[in-house]
């Protein structure tokens, strides 16, 4: 077993990248992901990895360089956040469309305007439809574990897709907590030797990436991309099973907490799930059957499995740390999609919390659970979408 350390989320993920030792990394700094890449670039400067670092003038260029390096046949990683991810947007679709297994930790942060550096999920939710796999992490440990698994997942020959590993800005990226590291050799063996597929540098077999496809085949190409996404679930579970053998830590498509016999539940992503679990415990000790579901894999979204896990509930609250102005929160929309084919759907509410790093406090979870108790009794929902934790 490796070391037990007290580190920040950024430090833990930088360590995972050191252990994986990718061939190329192109990055541009942005708070709160800056510290992650700064640490990783120190590993490069200190000769602890032999990654080639490409310093670029923007995130758009960072992703472009990653795409070039991945197409050339390298194992590639980068990291970003917020506006940085937004600036990459155009290139994200190209990475996924070209089926390049780039791994990118994203330190979740709000989007401007107004300018805000703190954590919410607006950035990665905006990249939801780019064709990347998205894994979300509650803790620094999960971010570290997900980052290592991301290489195996993305590079799996059945899929070959880029992967985002999301963790909450500041709340996890800059907080120190206990993390168990794996040994370097364990990580190296786990991710294995990189197997390039159709590398541009194989000049004896010339090929081209991203050619023009018009009305003749574009439609089929996109259908094929969706088809590939349907295979991701099995790969994620297979990699998680191997990872559990190595680390003893169990991962799935989502995590359930005291959900099996629950009557009411909160569905929530990332660090706020931790706080919610403590509140669930306190409600359980009061005799209220509360539970929780925390998606890990948001893209592709495991609709059927989530629906089965939620089917017995009398009321559900989906809490979103991102908004769709004039629409429902993105997680709520997915949960609606999951339960829509169920008979006798449980009543659901959508609550927006924690935008721009507003603290998610236990009393917010308590208020939601109290409301769910009422909804479970009456079956009546007063306000479908609302905001919690607002200043009164």
């Amino acid at each position, binding site marked *: 077993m490796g070391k037990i350390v007290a580190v920040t989320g950024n430090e833990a993920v930088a360590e995972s990248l050191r252990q994986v030792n990718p061939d190329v990394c192109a990055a541009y700094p942005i708070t709160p992901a800056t510290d992650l890449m700064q640490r990783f670039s120190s590993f490069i400067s200190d000769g602890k990895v032999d990654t080639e670092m490409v310093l670029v003038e923007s995130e758009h260029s960072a992703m472009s360089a990653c795409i070039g390096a991945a197409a050339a046949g390298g194992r590639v990683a980068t990291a970003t956040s917020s506006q940085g991810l937004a600036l990459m947007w155009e290139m994200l679709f190209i990475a996924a469309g070209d089926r390049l297994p780039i791994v990118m930790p994203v330190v979740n942060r709000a989007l401007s305007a107004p300018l805000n550096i703190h954590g919410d999920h607006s950035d990665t939710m905006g990249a939801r439809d780019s064709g990347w796999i998205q894994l979300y992490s509650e803790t620094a440990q999960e971010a570290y574990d997900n980052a290592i698994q991301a290489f195996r997942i993305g590079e799996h020959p059945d899929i070959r897709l880029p992967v985002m590993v999301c963790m909450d800005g500041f709340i996890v990226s800059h907080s*120190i907590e206990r993390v168990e590291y794996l040994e370097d050799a364990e990580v190296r063996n786990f991710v294995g030797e990189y197997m390039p597929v159709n590398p541009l540098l194989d000049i004896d077999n010339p090929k081209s990436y991203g050619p023009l496809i018009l009305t003749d085949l574009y439609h089929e190409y996109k259908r094929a991309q969706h088809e590939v996404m349907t295979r991701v679930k099995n790969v994620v579970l297979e990699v998680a099973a191997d990872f559990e053998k190595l680390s003893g830590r169990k991962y799935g498509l989502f995590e359930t907490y005291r959900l099996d016999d629950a009557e009411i539940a909160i569905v929530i992503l990332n660090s706020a799930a931790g706080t919610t679990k403590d509140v669930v415990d306190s409600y359980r000790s009061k005799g209220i059957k509360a539970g929780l579901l925390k998606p890990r894999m948001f893209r592709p979204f495991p609709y059927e499995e989530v629906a089965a896990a939620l089917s017995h509930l009398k009321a559900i609250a989906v809490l979103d740390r991102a908004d769709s102005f004039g629409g429902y929160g993105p997680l709520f929309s997915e949960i609606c999609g999951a339960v829509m084919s169920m008979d006798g759907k449980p009543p659901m509410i959508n609550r927006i919390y924690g935008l721009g790093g507003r603290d998610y406090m236990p009393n917010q979870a308590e208020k939601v659970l109290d409301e769910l108790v009422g909804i479970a009794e009456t079956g009546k929902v007063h306000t479908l979408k609302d905001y919690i934790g607002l200043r009164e």
Partner: protein
Amino acid sequence: MEKTIEIRWHGRGGQGTVTAAKVLADACLSGGRHVQAFPEYGPERAGAPLRAYNRISDHIIRMYCPVLHPNVICIADATLIDGINVTEGARDNSIFVVNTSKDPGEIRKKLDAKPEQKVFTVDATKIALECIGRALPNASMLGAVSRATGIVSMEVLLENVEKSFGKKFSRKIIDGNLDATKRGYEEVREG
């Protein structure tokens, strides 16, 4: 001891308060414990009041929000007592550790401490000036916190002060901080 010990630090930007919380987390990792250390991030600037937090537990820590009801309140700069409500959310048995040259009885009165609450004082700035030549009270505050709370032994704390300061500073500064930590432990007074 409670299942989870929650600590709130009050300091001013540039005093090393955030570093103190980090060193404490590192030191408390011993014995298989779980730890958290995090500051409240704002527009950081020297002299501005700031808060930092620790959670230390035998069990996994899942709370990801500021500490509301601290077991221990560390005040790295006593002038903050006049400016902000440092007793906010305190428990009936909270422990206060205050950096001041004043008598612990006087501070107890000023904080209007409840009978079960404990008030400790240490002249951490004076110790720092004597040991490291700069008004950085964090190491002596850590020594005082170790004595006042018993959450970590001096031996383990000193190892972690050495490790943490060793990354950035010269031997002289490291030794100064080790001395300051020891003196904080020895000179803390209860009132």
